[in-house]
């Protein structure tokens, strides 16, 4: 349920960034060193990774016809991949 307000903020950010036609420098100057953005997107990535891995597990079981264990392992793997890549991306954008 925390995802609800976060997605709204994220959508606002997308519309803001695209309307200003921000360059990479302009974006990074706004985000680098910002603890707020770092925390916000860090938590967003964590929640998204959990949510996506649960969904992927269900789909692998129901549509992929995989056994529960296999589906669970693949889903955890996917979740960890999302978490690592996501946090790396957040770090890339906010680290000063």
């Amino acid at each position: 349920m925390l995802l609800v307000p976060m997605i709204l903020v994220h959508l606002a950010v997308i519309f803001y960034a695209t309307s200003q036609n921000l360059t990479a420098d302009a974006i990074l100057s706004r985000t680098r060193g910002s603890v707020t953005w770092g925390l916000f997107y860090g938590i967003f990535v964590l929640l998204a990774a959990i949510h996506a891995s649960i969904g992927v597990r269900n789909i692998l079981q129901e549509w992929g016809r995989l056994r529960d264990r296999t589906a669970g392992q693949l889903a955890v793997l996917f979740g960890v991949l999302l978490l690592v890549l996501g946090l790396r991306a957040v770090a890339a954008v906010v680290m000063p």
Partner: protein
Amino acid sequence: MSSTSHAYRRNTLWNAALVHRLSGIGLAIFLPIHFLALGLALSGAAKLEGFLRLTQMPVVTAAETILIFLLVVHFLGGLRLLALENGPWFSGQRRVALVAIGVAAVVALIFLVRLL
């Protein structure tokens, strides 16, 4: 069995569930790519800038519009399910589901128009 064997699926709410699942799959495929792209900033702003210039290609803009649609439709569909499973029961769910899909399309269209 035959062409009519899945006729029970011909209803709005079943299709809303299908849209929810397909949009979820779409977003799950997109997320790692999104993160990798942002990760380019690790090796300097110039690298990210180069990627951002790519997004001005019409085909990428079209893909972004579709992604906005997927995100909003998955978000609104999820809201409907949250309300339905946790709140008091409400009727008129077909309409709510259709409005969710419509709003997602409109938001995506606004996104597209502003970029053009």
